[in-house]
């Protein structure tokens, strides 16, 4: 009897209210009000048998269930077979999220079993089912980190844990997908993938309009195929204003690699089509023999495109010499030293030559060192699409005109983003899957050489089909993924070697990304970090823009002067102190305990206030320089320098540990002004304070043992709370996402 009770308690505790999409499962409530999501199997004498989504059978006395559920159980028909591994119906165009998630689960489940021979080779025991269901505390922390890019704050975590609605997981997923955090977190992901930088290579050229554009598209939940099409077909300067008032930021994609069209193409193929062309340099591609010729044929689609406007693009006159001829006498007249100003003004003008334009001549030629028999160095190369298999010849994606030189990019982009392109949907689906699980179905995500070599080919193909079915709606796709039983499992504890295939019995244990770590700190400091936004979205674009065909020298000088003032303005805009964080202090009359002068600057656009602490701007990672400056918390934590695709690292290093132990961020959190302390002040009892501290930082309640440790610590001296806060943010448990 005692065993049964323990087992039952475990069952209900582990499986609390799963809002997952398991077919025909329902939520069972016991006499204590605890709930579990499970399938009814049968009644055996006094006992009921339930099956949880991990496939496990649980037998316990029927009387443990609530009266209502006892009645339902007695009326229920025994299940004929265990449903876990049954085949699900094929996907309908209008399948519900629950149905779609169930289908994914089914494919994951069958993949788990098929994996066993492979696992055996690696010396691993066979698996037949998912990891146990993650509990609510684990789930709420993970899902906030995965969707909103940060840990939940105290209110968010405790509200969810207390909620007894059986559908609360699905509801939380929906809520988070519509939150500000979703936008900033997805932006961070793409910024890393696309190597987005605040400062482009050419002086004065900033990625600001490109960054703004990306964020806008994510906010609008623009379908992925449309976004990508815009990026590879945009024409003009990034800061050209469009009729609808938005900026032409999509041009930033090609301008990011201005002057390096071959690099840009290699990146395009890698990022959007999961095709790493570098491999053709050293070994044969198993299906499509990538040759240098093919690479140039693909490059030829961009062969008529320039990323720097010259005289022939600007009405035949070189803007630099024309404008400088007028500017130099004006400066000399004003008594200033032209030698000191010339370079700056030229750079300012030159920034406006950084633009995308299609010319009427395709200049693609084989390189001077071309050494294969199918061409000679300097030969012109005509555009041609690559294929991955013989079947691609009849693929509708390939029906594109290649006649018009000025429209070659459009042909390329239509082919690339076509729903039936053999790699486009699969690549983004595989990447989005990895965001949830920590591993792609195909690894690496940058090279889907052969889908059949992936860890679960059926799943990979299905996910690609799903991406097409939801019409490249990334939010809807992620909604399906987050609602799977596989995702809602506990993180995998077994060791996974580098390069070893992973089969998704649950998400992998992952260290927080640099951005997640920073944004979680910001949550601990600010409560709702999304209310603080970077100012100055617009000022840069307005002040840098020149129309080089029409502008006169005097206007250039006036605008240049305005441009130089931006920096000063930006510096002046940073200021409020820690005590401003969390909102409530500003409403209360209670004077701040801090003696620091409060300086909150008003800004021209954006919500208005940027807080800072000892020079640290208290903003989410997406709102500060891209990438952050050297020595910033984000850099120490492995933020991508934005040179390599997906270039971040999650390994530790000494400076990083020093930052967590001794840096400004921990000082901020252990200070009596911090939001953690202010949350704790709302209750009197030390044990309640400790519980609030745990819920705020770890998003879980303290264990019995931890309560004891806390009691002992508080008894030992005044700094007890600060010491415990410090200790908790320094745990591995804090840094890793379960």
């Amino acid at each position: 009897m005692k065993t049964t009770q323990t087992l039952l308690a475990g069952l209900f505790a582990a499986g609390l209210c799963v809002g997952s999409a398991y077919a025909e499962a329902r939520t069972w409530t016991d006499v204590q009000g605890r709930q579990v999501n499970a399938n009814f199997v049968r009644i055996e004498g006094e006992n009921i048998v339930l099956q949880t989504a991990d496939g496990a059978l649980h037998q316990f006395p029927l009387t443990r269930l609530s009266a209502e559920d006892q009645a339902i159980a007695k009326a229920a028909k025994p299940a004929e077979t265990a449903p876990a591994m049954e085949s699900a119906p094929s996907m309908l165009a209008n399948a519900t999220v629950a149905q779609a998630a169930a289908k994914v689960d089914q494919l994951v489940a069958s993949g788990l079993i098929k994996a066993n021979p492979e696992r055996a080779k690696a010396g691993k025991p066979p698996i037949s089912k998912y990891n146990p269901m993650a509990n609510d505390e684990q789930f709420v922390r993970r899902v906030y980190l995965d969707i909103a890019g940060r840990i939940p704050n105290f209110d968010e975590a405790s509200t969810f844990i207390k909620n007894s609605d059986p559908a609360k997981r699905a509801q939380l997923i929906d809520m988070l997908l519509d939150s500000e955090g979703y936008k900033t977190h997805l932006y961070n992901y793409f910024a890393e993938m696309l190597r987005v930088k605040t400062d482009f290579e050419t002086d004065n050229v900033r990625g600001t309009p490109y960054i703004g554009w990306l964020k806008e598209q994510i906010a609008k939940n623009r379908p992925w195929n449309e976004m990508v099409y815009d990026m590879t077909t945009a024409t003009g300067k990034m800061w050209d204003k469009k009729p609808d008032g938005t900026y032409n930021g999509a041009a930033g994609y090609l301008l990011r690699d201005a002057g390096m069209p071959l690099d840009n193409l290699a990146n395009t193929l890698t990022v959007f089509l999961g095709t790493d062309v570098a491999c053709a340099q050293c070994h044969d591609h198993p299906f499509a023999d990538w040759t240098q010729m093919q690479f140039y044929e693909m490059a030829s689609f961009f062969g008529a495109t320039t990323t720097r406007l010259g005289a022939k693009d600007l009405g035949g006159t070189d803007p630099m010499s024309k404008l400088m001829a007028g500017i130099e006498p004006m400066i000399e007249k004003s008594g200033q030293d032209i030698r000191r100003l010339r370079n700056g003004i030229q750079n300012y003008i030159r920034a406006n030559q950084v633009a995308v334009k299609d010319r009427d001549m395709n200049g693609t030629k084989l390189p001077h060192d071309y050494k294969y028999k199918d061409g000679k160095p300097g030969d012109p190369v005509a555009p041609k699409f690559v294929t991955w298999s013989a079947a691609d010849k009849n693929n509708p994606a390939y029906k594109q005109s290649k006649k018009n030189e000025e429209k070659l990019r459009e042909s390329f982009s239509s082919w690339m983003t076509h729903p039936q392109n053999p790699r486009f949907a699969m690549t983004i689906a595989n990447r989005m899957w990895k965001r949830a699980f920590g591993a792609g179905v195909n690894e690496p995500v940058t090279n889907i050489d052969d889908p059949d070599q992936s860890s679960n080919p059926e799943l990979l193909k299905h996910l690609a089909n799903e991406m097409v079915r939801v019409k490249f709606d990334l939010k809807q796709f992620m909604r399906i993924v987050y609602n799977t039983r596989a995702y809602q499992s506990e993180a995998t504890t077994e060791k996974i070697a580098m390069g070893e295939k992973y089969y998704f019995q649950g998400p992998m244990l992952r260290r927080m990304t640099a951005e997640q770590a920073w944004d979680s700190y910001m949550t601990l400091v600010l409560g709702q970090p999304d209310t603080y936004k970077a100012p100055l979205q617009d000022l840069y674009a307005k002040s840098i823009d020149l129309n080089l065909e029409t502008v006169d020298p005097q206007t250039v000088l006036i605008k240049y002067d305005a441009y130089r003032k931006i920096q000063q303005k930006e510096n002046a805009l940073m200021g409020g102190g820690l005590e401003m964080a969390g909102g409530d202090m500003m409403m209360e009359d209670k004077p701040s305990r801090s003696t620091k002068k409060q300086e909150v600057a008003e800004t021209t656009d954006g919500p208005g206030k940027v807080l800072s602490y000892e020079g640290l701007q208290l903003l989410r990672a997406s709102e500060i320089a891209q990438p952050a400056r050297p020595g910033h918390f984000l850099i120490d934590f492995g933020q991508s320098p934005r040179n390599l695709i997906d270039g971040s690292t999650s390994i530790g290093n000494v400076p990083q540990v020093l930052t967590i132990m001794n840096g400004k961020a921990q000082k901020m959190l252990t200070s009596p002004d911090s939001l953690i302390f202010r949350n704790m002040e709302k209750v009197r009892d030390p044990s309640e304070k400790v519980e609030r501290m745990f819920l705020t930082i770890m998003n879980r309640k303290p264990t019995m043992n931890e309560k004891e440790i806390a009691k002992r610590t508080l008894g030992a001296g005044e700094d007890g709370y600060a010491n415990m806060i410090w200790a908790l943010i320094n745990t591995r448990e804090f840094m890793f996402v379960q």
Partner: protein
Amino acid sequence: MKSDLLRLNDANRRDFMLRTAKSVLGVSLLPGISAKMAAAEGASVSGPGTPGFGKAKHVIYLWMAGGMTHIDTFDPKTGATKGFSDPIKAKADSIDYLGGYLPKLAENASKLTLIRSMSSKTGVHESGTYIMKTGYEPRGTIVHPAMGVWASHFLGRIKDVTLPDSVIVNSGSSYPGAGFFPPAMSPIPISNPETGLQNIQPTTTDNQFTKRISLMNEFDSSFRKKFQSEDVKAYSEFYDETLKLMKSEDLKAFDLSAESPDTREKYGRNNFGQGCLLARRLVESGVRFVEVQMGGWDMHNTIDNAMTNNGNTLDTAFSALLLDLEAKGLLESTMVVLGSEFGRTPDVNENDGRDHYPLSYTTVLAGAGAKRGYTYGASDKEGRRPADKQASPQDFLATVGHAMGLPVDEVVMSPSNRPFTVADKGTPLLEVFA
């Protein structure tokens, strides 16, 4: 956990080093398999007793990020591809000229060995950087170790100090770092030489700090028990190592303010100059491998302007470093190496700049066993192709590995059971050694 902490407080330095060495070397690697090519070739090209082997107890790798123009620096030309400045006659037996932007190095050319026949396959920054730091082409499935980490693997942790084996100056990232070796072997990045190791001081009293560490370990014990992954363990190792370093006397190596204003001036008051000075201090204190990065070499536009700035910075710092190392008697045991991901196009483009060019470029060696005032190989008349003794990035790094005394032909199996060698089977260029 408690006993861990106590041990940490009174552990003597050697104990700690032994412990770290074990954790660093003992984890997940099969013993190296000797695969000497000697059997086939008849004689070993590298190894004890061969010229220059093991002479470099320290290496300072000056990394020119962005692709350093070879024609405007160490391989100047006078014909059709001549740059904007006139080459300067070098004061050395077998180095003819250096680029016009490097007058001080031309003066000190008798300390240099130039490898003018470098050639590589990739003109992409990322992969070029990767190859020139690891000897391997980048792969999606594995990260290869940087040279300093290979040295830690074969030679063990440096002795007698708590300082790290490898340091990277002027970078926020240590990528590719330890590669497939344990993460604890990663170089330590120093973003800014002026500020050195940031946050090295605790913000509380030692006593309170000790309490905090103890609490951390208690609160974290169940998590660490549940998730015994390499990643989690590696983090705990970093904590141990960091705590040790915080208490270390050796930290003063990072403090540039201990240098006279005069010395600091000589190196140039910029991040690269001060980075070189920091490298000298670190080497002096025992650090084995220091990389100092310098950016601004991706000169697609107006290369004359760009070279005037960058040339001067490099010229000043590199010369000061060589003179300083020599004055301190460290040049005998320290090899200064200069490299970049590729060269730049011999033809000047429409923006008066030069573009990426991997087919021909130059690297530089100085000190330890390297010949003084020597040119290895040559590019053709216009700097387009190697004309004599072509050398690959692998050969170049194998040469550095050889100088450090690493068994460059010994196969090491990665945890995923794939075979690797220092510098991917490159051949050390023994002619560069005296």
